[in-house]
């Protein structure tokens, strides 16, 4: 039971990332992004002091806020429609994501032993899982908002992995800057697309 509870943030974060990969509904995606970033906190807390473990989730929240305000500005925030049927594209993306996670889960022990022996398996599963889902997101859509989410998911996986390998204040500061700039670039693209659509 304790083991399950400890693994819970991993599954919730991956589920949120999968939801972002599958469903294209801006409000829902923003909530999923918040959940994804918030679930990084318990994982980071296992290897870092509280103040440092807060940095990445807090940056994630700031990033989501930037995207939310931008979407609000262009009229993209609408009520969540929970009664929907899945399209073939959504089913494909969902299955692709689950397949990737299943493959990762299968080969994780060998991968961990060969490449990252010092990283806890839950930590490694979440970080590589986020990287894979982020990459799939980047490869399946060209809409700026989802590209921003894909890049943020990919980067959060990398940051999580790297925090278990070594920690540097300079690197953390640079990565925070990258995340914030990425959100601003995402917002820039959203506004540009909205402007050219209305023109």
């Amino acid at each position, binding site marked *: 039971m304790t083991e399950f509870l400890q693994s819970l943030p991993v599954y919730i974060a991956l589920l949120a990332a999968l939801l972002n990969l599958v469903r294209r509904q801006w409000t829902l995606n923003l909530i999923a992004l918040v959940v994804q970033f918030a679930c990084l906190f318990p994982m980071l807390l296992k290897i870092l002091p509280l103040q440092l473990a807060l940095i990445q989730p807090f940056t994630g929240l700031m990033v989501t806020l930037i995207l939310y305000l931008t979407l609000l500005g262009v009229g993209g925030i609408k009520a969540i429609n929970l009664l929907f049927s899945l399209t073939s594209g959504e089913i494909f993306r969902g299955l692709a994501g689950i397949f990737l996670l299943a493959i990762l889960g299968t080969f994780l022990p060998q991968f961990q032993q060969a490449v990252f022996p010092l990283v806890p398996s839950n930590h490694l599963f979440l970080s590589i899982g986020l990287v894979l889902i982020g990459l799939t997101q980047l490869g399946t859509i060209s809409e700026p908002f989802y590209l921003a989410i894909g890049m943020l998911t990919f980067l959060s996986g990398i940051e999580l992995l790297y925090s278990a390998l070594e920690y540097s204040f300079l690197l953390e500061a640079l*990565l925070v800057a*990258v995340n914030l700039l990425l959100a*601003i670039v995402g917002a820039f693209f959203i506004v540009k697309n909205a402007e050219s659509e209305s023109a």
Partner: protein
Amino acid sequence: MNNTVIIWIVLPALLGLALVLIQRQTKLSAVLGSLIPFVLTVLAVVFSKGLTLLVLGRYFILVDSLVIFGRTIQITADQLGIIALLYFLCFAWNLLSGLFKVGHWFNSLSLIITALWVSVQFINPFLYSAVVIELIALVSVPLLSPRGTPARSGVIRFLSMQTLAMPLILISGWMVSGIETSPSAEAIILRGSLLVIAGFSLWAGIFPIHSWLPMLTEESHPWIISFLQTIMQISLAIFFLKFLNQYAWLRNLEEIKLVLKWIGALCIISAGTMVVFQKKLSRILGYLYLSGTGYIVLSMAFQQQGWLDVLSLYLLPCVFAYWSLGYALSLLREALGSEQIDFSELSGLIWRYPLISVLLLCSLLNIIGMPLFSLFPSHRIIWSILASESLTIRLLISIGLLGMITMVLRVLGMMVQPPEVTDQDKKEKPVFIVPVVLIVLLMVLSGLFPQIFSAPIQSLLISFQNLLL
């Protein structure tokens, strides 16, 4: 203020931010955008002999390091040559930016981008520079994708590739840390090398992951993209030298030389073959960058006596070649009112715009390394080194060169055709004769007397002590 890091990284970045505030005043912004990098270039040249300077009986002594977040950034006197080259590049592009519609952001962001590229060369541990390169890609977005147009696929693909490259370099650094003390770790060396090569391939747009390069040159203004790509190509080349200089295991790996030779050859042949089939001059620019990357990689593959001199000899003429081509394409874009400059629009160009046509032709001949032009001496050295190489590599490079020559002949063929439409209102300004003649003259003179360009940068790469054979 008496710190090299503050003078050449922090201050220009802050001044770049300050220029954002006055970007609407385009003339002032352009003047300051040219003046600041010029002053920084001059200062870098002056202090490159030593960090102490005696002026009017007063000593100016610069401190060479700064601690940020517990990490040291150090810029010593012998590294100032690299800084001078990067700021000179920024100056050269800002100087003429006022002539073209490059947007309000160019002067400020070009200065910030240059400061960031300088920081890439000097952050310690240098692997963290990978994150700064990602920052540069993000800062470049307003230049590559101006407002009023939707986000196009080239810039999105460029961003994705730069983002994917960053973790590869970061993880390679962690993976091979301490490898110097355990020389038997062959598997780790191989993994580390693969990660480094993959990371640089994504950054530079090496064949076959180069698709974003012609897309980006097609979507952006030639003056902007030529600046961004030139500074990126030069800075990445210097950054790769840093890897070779720092990591003995990478430098001494026999396979790395073979891999570099093949990467270089494949870039040159792919650029040469694909450029023949292009219908837009803007896309051709992308393939010329691919070919240029190929030559830089090739010059790094032959680590023989004096190979760093060959690379030094290549860098400044290369900057000049891209600058003149960017200038020619920008003039053409403004003259024709065409964003992508289709081949059909070149019909009869030499009758309508003779000066721009001459500049374009000379720039193309220069950039592909034809005799009499400034890039020929360094290309000739690379070709002569290749004479002892395998037939396959020689053949690949010859085909690539042949493709480039065919492309120039196609451009020439279109230009000399009788014009289909004669628009009497659109005439070339006679004032162009001065810069065009000066540029072509400099191209030819530096081809005949290569020391014009090689003398100022002779000690450019002197800080790479481990690579000086």
